[in-house]
């Protein structure tokens, strides 16, 4: 079963720049996919279209049976509840503790307090931060903050986890820690993960599927791909 189907998608920004040209993709449930490409290749735009931050100008983007392009602003939350998103800059709330930051994602969708507690602690255990529950984000290292963000993204048990350069601010060792956490989530929960990155080492080590984009065009989509310098 394909979780994501992208058909004839074109994205042209209002300033006239075309970020994606006629893209066709199908991503299977449970897969781990890297999206690579240089700056301006359209990888961020692709990720943004998947969580309906941007609408495609043409074509269809179907995520879990939902046509994202046709989704009205008011209904965007229905899509967002099905997926988790992780960013390069973590996007944690500084005034809330680690626990509260993760619980926040469940509170705003109206979960019960008891089930929030169970789910939050489970998610924090998965990312290895159970002993930092009461810390504030600024008391944590970058890698730890990113793991909190991952915990927040998976606490709702989404089918799809989108990561936009999650290791962009981290050194190679911390980056590998994050990758290990993501791989565990992919295996244990069966969560489909799509990760935009330009970290050559990670892509080569992980041996996952790789989508290569160049100037808005799909170059190739390989199983167990490598970071192909020439293609970029």
């Amino acid at each position, binding site marked *: 079963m394909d979780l994501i189907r992208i058909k004839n998608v074109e994205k042209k920004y209002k300033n006239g720049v075309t970020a994606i040209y006629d893209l066709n993709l199908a991503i299977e449930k449970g897969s781990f996919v890297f999206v690579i490409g240089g700056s301006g290749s359209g990888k961020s735009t692709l990720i943004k279209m998947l*969580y*309906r*931050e941007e609408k495609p100008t043409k074509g269809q983007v179907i995520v879990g049976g939902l046509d994202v392009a046709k989704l009205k*602003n*008011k209904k*965007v*939350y*229905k*899509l*967002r*509840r*099905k997926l988790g*998103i992780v960013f390069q800059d973590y*996007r944690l*709330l500084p005034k809330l503790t680690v626990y509260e930051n993760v619980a*926040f*994602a469940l*509170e*705003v*969708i*109206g979960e*019960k307090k008891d089930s929030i507690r169970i789910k939050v602690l489970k998610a924090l255990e998965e990312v290895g931060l159970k002993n930092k529950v009461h810390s504030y984000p600024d008391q944590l290292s970058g890698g730890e903050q990113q793991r909190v963000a991952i915990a*927040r993204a998976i606490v*709702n048990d989404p089918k799809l986890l989108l990561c936009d350069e999650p290791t962009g601010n981290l050194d190679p060792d911390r980056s590998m820690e994050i990758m290990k956490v993501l791989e565990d989530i992919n295996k244990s929960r069966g969560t489909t993960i799509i990760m935009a990155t330009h970290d050559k080492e990670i892509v080569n080590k992980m041996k996952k599927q790789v989508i290569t984009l160049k100037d808005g065009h799909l170059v190739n989509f390989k199983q167990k791909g490598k970071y192909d310098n020439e293609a970029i």
Partner: protein
Amino acid sequence: MKPFRMLGRSIRDAFKSVIRNFSLSLASISCITITLIIVSIALIASLNVQNFTKLIERDMTIVVFLDSDTTEEQAKEIEEKISDLSNVSEYSFQTKKEVKIRMQEESDIFRTVLENFDDENSPLKDTFQVKVKEIEKIKNTAQKIEKMKHVAVVRYGEGMVDKMVKAFSSIEKVAYGIVGALILVTIFLIINTIKLTISARKKEIGIMRLVGASNFTIKTPFIVEGMILGMLGSIVPIGITTYGYVAFYKHFNGYLYSELIQLIKPDPFVYQISLIVLGIGILVGMIGSSSAVRRYLKV
């Protein structure tokens, strides 16, 4: 229950936000306070004007004096004609004797002067007191009565009273205009203050959207916050209205300048005004905050 849980969280968040952004909250509150004070004064003034114009209108009568030599039968005829007029709401008839007795009761001077007259040579006349349904048509009705046989003189407010009524009603309109304009200005001020508190929480709203909070969930705490600000802002105006009006009423013994201009009794008037002021405060806060937050929910 999920909706109640969400509402509880909204209310909690709203109170937190009011306290956290206290200086901004204070700005909104004082702005609402000032407006509501003026609104309540305008409201009290215009309702009082409305009240005594109604009282005056109700008391406005046409007094019809009949010729001295009118017989009882002729008076009856006139009575029938008067009751046939469409604008007449009620009327009463007083004979010379009754008029004399009433006047003697009213003052000692009248008593001694009128002692000297008996029915035959009385300077007094049989009179009808006619009340009209529509005050605007009083002149027309008076003219009709004047044309009847045996009617000597017809008296009514003759312009003075209805000019006063017209003046009052224009004062009332101006007061309503001022109230409306003030409410509008306050809404804009609240939109701006709440926008500031929201822009401080832009990041939070962004994250809420990312993790799948519906627009309703995001909006509710801000709207509740606006309502709280409105409520807090109406405390002082309600106090001023309640105590101020009671003091004002007592100081003037219930009327202004002459007994013609009667003030509305404070109970239950001040409570009604307080409720209206509270309602306006809450509504203004709500409208202000919901239109402020709407701009942040567009993607």
